[in-house]
């Protein structure tokens, strides 16, 4: 390992840790409180207005999300979150220091697509398409895991390049 290799790798890892801590702090202190406020004050009331009094579906608030559940337990509880939530920021805090535009674009664009997927699936469940509930739960786990995987792979790829 020569001096340059060590210094480039060192600088990269230092940048990565600074990015994780800085974005983590911005998320905790600013982004999440704003998202929680928007969900509590605007999004949850808006979706609540679609739930009829005789519906067996109930909504309940979370922190920066809300939940849809069935009074008769006819479907598993579903978490409805806003796009650009914590998983986006965690993934991006790993991707930004690597300058991997391709992975960054995938994560960014998918979050834009979530602006359509999440409300449509929530409205679908509210309007009785309750078979969507397990699908929504599976989708949530898969996309969040894939964001984190892209983050780790971006880090690994950059470290591999710097090493070689």
């Amino acid at each position, binding site marked *: 390992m020569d001096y340059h290799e060590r210094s480039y790798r060192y600088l990269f890892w230092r940048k990565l840790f600074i990015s994780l801590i800085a974005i*983590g702090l911005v998320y*905790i202190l600013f982004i999440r409180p704003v998202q929680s406020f928007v969900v509590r004050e605007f999004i949850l009331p808006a979706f609540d207005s679609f739930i009829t009094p005789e519906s067996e579906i109930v909504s309940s608030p979370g*922190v920066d999300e809300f939940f849809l559940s069935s009074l008769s337990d006819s479907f*598993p509880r579903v978490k409805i979150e806003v796009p650009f939530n*914590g998983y986006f920021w*965690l993934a991006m805090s*790993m991707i930004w220091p690597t300058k991997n535009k*391709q*992975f960054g674009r*995938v994560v960014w664009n998918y979050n834009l697509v979530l602006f359509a997927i999440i409300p449509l699936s929530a409205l679908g469940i509210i309007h009785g398409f309750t078979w969507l509930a*397990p699908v929504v*739960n*599976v989708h949530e*786990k*898969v996309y969040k*895991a*894939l964001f*984190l*995987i*892209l*983050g*780790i*792979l971006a*880090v*690994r*790829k950059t470290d*591999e*390049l710097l090493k070689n």
Partner: protein
Amino acid sequence: MINLKNKFSPLTLFLLKAGGVYAAWQLIYDLVVLPDGRLDTWLSITGVKLAAAGLSFLGWEIETTGRFIACVGNRGVEIQNGCNGMDLLGLYAGFIIAYSGNMKKRVMFIIGGIGLIFIANVFRIAFFALSNLYYPQYWDSVHNYSSYVFFYPIVLTLWYLWTTMSDHTDIFSGESFSSA
């Protein structure tokens, strides 16, 4: 028969495989494990018991009942399903299963990682009990962000280590994504 290896890049194939593993795990969890409840209950109660034993050993007076743990005379914490680290076990193992490597090493890595995450969860439960004793006013923040402190650093570090241990480096070469 379509040859997926020719059609997709190694990275795309890996992401598809990982997505499939996570989807299968979530379906099994939602339809079998969660309704059955035994594994979740075992994880929660064992975590509480071990956290209580650790804290008692270190000199705190602890009381527990099932999923509840509290420092004597203080507000208790209930470790519910969904808050017992089960999600993270699936998240961790899914990556290791999907990312190719030596099978024996992989099994060892999964078992070791699950053990480590379980231990981290015991520390997290103990931390919950102590935070309710010393800083009850910060309970919401402690609860909301505990995963980011106790679980994600472990999961992400172990994932990274696995990519360095595994011989599957073609993921990082050439075009990252491919289209059919």
